[in-house]
C-alpha cells in the first residue's frame, strides 16, 4: 500500500526509485501501470486519470518486473509476436531487437520454458523494447542479466529516454542504476522520503536529454499528506 507519494516524471526523464524491501517501489510501479487501484489522491499517467480509468493507459505502458509475463510453451518468437500483435505494433520490429539481445537464430525458435532465467529476462526486455512504450516501468531490471545483458539494457533505457519515453526504475543496485538516472527518489513505508539528482551526476550532460526539453506528456502520481492511503 502506498501513502503520501508525491512524484512527477517528465517525458524523456529516467527516475530511479530506491528503498528497502517493502518500501513500496513495486506497488508504485504497478499503480503507474494501472495494475493497482488508486483509491485516494490524484494519479495521472500519460494524461489518463488512474482513479477514473486505469485500463486505457496500458497499451502505452511497458513493464519489466520480477515476472516476465511469458508463456513457457511458446517459442521466443511466438511470445514476441503475440505481445506485439496484442499491442498493435508491427511484427517487423522483432528482428533487430532479437539480434541486439542475442536471441536471434536457433534461440528464437526455442521454447521459453527451456531458457535460462537470464535469457527469459532478455526475451521480456525484447518485448518491451520492440513495443517502445511511452512509459517504461522497470522493477529490478538488472536482476538475472549477465554483464552484456545489463549493458544492452542500459543502452536501451538511454535510447528510450532520448526518444522521449519516461522511465521509472526501481532498483536495489543504486550504483548501477544511478548511472542511468536523472533523478533519484527514496521511498520507505510506502512514502516518498526525498528526491535528488544522483550523486556525482548533473541532470543534463553526456547526451542525456535535459529535463523538460522532451516533455510531451507527464506521468504524475501525487497524493494527499502522509498517513492517508490512496493506492491499495
Amino acid at each position, binding site marked *: 500500500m502506498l501513502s503520501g507519494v508525491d512524484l512527477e516524471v517528465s517525458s524523456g526523464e529516467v527516475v530511479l526509485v530506491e528503498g528497502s524491501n517493502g518500501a513500496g517501489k513495486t506497488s508504485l510501479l504497478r499503480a503507474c*501501470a*494501472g*495494475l493497482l487501484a488508486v483509491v485516494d489522491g490524484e494519479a495521472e499517467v500519460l494524461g489518463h486519470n488512474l482513479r477514473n480509468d486505469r*485500463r486505457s493507459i*496500458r*497499451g502505452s*505502458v*511497458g*513493464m519489466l*518486473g520480477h*515476472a*516476465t*509475463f*511469458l*508463456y*513457457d*510453451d*511458446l517459442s521466443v518468437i*511466438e511470445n514476441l509476436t*503475440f*505481445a506485439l*500483435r*496484442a*499491442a*498493435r505494433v508491427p511484427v517487423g520490429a522483432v528482428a533487430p531487437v532479437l539480434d541486439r539481445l542475442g536471441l536471434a537464430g536457433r534461440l528464437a525458435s526455442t*521454447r521459453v520454458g527451456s531458457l535460462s532465467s537470464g535469457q527469459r529476462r532478455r526475451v521480456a526486455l525484447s518485448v518491451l523494447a520492440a513495443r517502445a512504450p511511452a512509459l517504461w516501468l522497470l522493477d529490478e531490471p538488472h536482476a538475472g542479466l549477465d554483464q552484456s545483458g545489463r549493458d544492452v539494457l542500459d543502452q536501451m533505457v538511454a535510447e528510450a529516454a532520448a526518444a522521449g519515453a519516461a522511465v521509472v526504475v526501481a532498483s536495489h543496485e543504486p550504483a548501477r542504476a544511478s548511472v542511468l538516472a536523472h533523478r533519484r527518489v527514496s521511498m520507505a513505508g510506502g512514502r516518498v522520503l526525498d528526491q535528488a539528482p544522483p550523486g556525482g551526476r548533473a541532470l543534463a550532460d553526456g547526451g542525456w536529454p535535459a529535463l523538460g526539453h522532451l516533455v510531451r506528456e507527464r506521468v504524475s502520481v501525487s497524493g494527499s499528506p502522509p498517513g492517508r492511503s490512496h493506492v491499495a
Partner: protein
Amino acid sequence: MWRDALLVAGKDLRVEARSRVAVNQVVPFAVLVLVLFAFALGPDRRVLSQATAGLLWVAVLFSAVLAVQRSFALEAADSARDGLRLSGLDPAGIFLGKAGAVAAQLLVLELILAGATVVLYDARLHGALLLVATSLAATAGLAAAGTVYAALAAGLRVRETLLPLLLMPVVAPVLLAATKAWQAGLAGVPSDGERWLEMLCVFAVIYVTLGLVTFGALLEES
C-alpha cells in the same frame, strides 16, 4: 474485439498443441470415464445404449472443468495474466478468445467421445443435425460459463477445488438439456429434442453476454 479474440484463441490453442495436455490427459480421462461407467453398468447393451447420452455429457462436463482450469493456469504462470492486462487487448476479446479455444477443444473431444460411445455402448447416431446443433450450443454454453467462473476463481488460492464447486451447479441445465436432446436424436425423434436445444441456445446467449460484459471487471479483480 474479434481480432483480439482470434489472437488470444490462436495463442491458447498453440500452447495446447505444444504442451499436449488436452491430448495426453483430458481426452484419455474422458474416455476412461466412459469405460468406467460401462464397467459400472454391466454388459447389458440395452442399458448402456439408454445411458449413452447422459454418460457422454457427464464426461464432457468433467473435461470442460479441466479445460477451463488449464486455460487459466496458463495465465497464472509467470504472472502472464498481468501481461495480458498490460497488453492493451480488449477484455471482451480476451473472453471470446479463451472461451473459443476451450470450445474448440471440447468439440474435438465430443467427436472422439461420440465415436467411443459407438464402440463401447453400441450407440446409433441418428438425427445427426440435432446432435451437431446440440453439441455446438452446449459447448458454447459450457465454454462461456466455464470461462466466466474460472476468471472469478482465478485469483484465489483454492481455485482448483473451488471452480468445480462453482461451475457444476451452474452448468447442470446444460447437462440436462444436452442429454435430453441427444436422447431424442439417438432415438430417431429429433422433434422431441428441439425445445431442449432452444434451452441450450438461451443458456449460451446468456453466458456469452455475461462474459462479454463482466470479463473486464473479473480480470481486474482476479
